[in-house]
């Protein structure tokens, strides 16, 4: 696998991560389904995976970049498993509406599993790490890589603003009922 092909695959993977974050945002804004603290931490895991993918896009593929991707996925997967286990006992209810028969935290768990699997598979192709003496250009001149980077950057910043409005600088309500910080700001005016 050439470094260029690897970068293209990383850009596609990053766009998939962006798609998951956009779907979560749509559910939040259109269905008014406020994310719980554990849901937000799963989004943190997705953005952390995105950070590792960004490293591959900007700096070129490296083994330790995949290590960062796996770290992000292990964290996010741990949060997902925690939330799945919270509701696994019959009668303990669930959080949010199911999508295609599964709740978002279950989908997130599957997504993190796929990320770890994908990173493991990518690490088997060692030729992607062979650049010779030439230092790879940022993004390798790929428009797809630049686009994916900008989208994840906007989504990460958007999640920071959204989480601030929902939780404020302190602890998030569990379960959240409204945009706590936004209401506090409105009351202060």
């Amino acid at each position, binding site marked *: 696998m050439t470094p260029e092909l690897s970068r293209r695959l990383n850009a596609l993977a990053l766009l998939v991560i962006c798609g998951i974050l956009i779907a979560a945002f749509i559910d939040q804004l259109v269905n008014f389904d406020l994310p719980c*603290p*554990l849901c*937000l*931490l799963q*989004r*943190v*895991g997705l*953005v*952390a995976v*995105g*950070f590792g993918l*960004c*490293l591959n896009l*900007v*700096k070129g593929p490296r083994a330790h970049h995949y290590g*960062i991707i796996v*770290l*992000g996925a292990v*964290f996010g997967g*741990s*949060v997902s498993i*925690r939330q799945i286990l*919270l509701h696994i*006992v019959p*009668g*303990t*209810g669930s959080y949010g509406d199911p999508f295609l028969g599964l709740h978002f935290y279950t989908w997130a768990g599957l997504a993190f599993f796929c990320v770890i699997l994908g990173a493991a598979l990518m690490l088997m192709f060692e030729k992607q790490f062979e650049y010779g003496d030439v230092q790879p250009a*940022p993004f390798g001149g790929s428009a797809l890589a630049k686009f994916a*980077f900008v989208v*994840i*950057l906007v989504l*990460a*910043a958007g*999640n*920071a*603003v959204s*989480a*601030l409005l929902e*939780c404020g*600088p*302190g*602890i*998030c309500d*569990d*379960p959240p009922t409204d945009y706590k910080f936004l209401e506090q700001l409105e009351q202060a005016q």
Partner: protein
Amino acid sequence: MIALLFALLTLAMLLVLWNRSTLAYIVFGVTLVLSVYWLQFHATSQLTIHL
């Protein structure tokens, strides 16, 4: 606090773009530690489920 985690990851991505990789790794490491702390906080908080 969770907003801070997103903000730190955004900063880490910008640092990669600005060719400050070492600083980006440090920011990512700090974010990961804070995230684990926050997970531990929520994983051990009192549950609101009733059996």
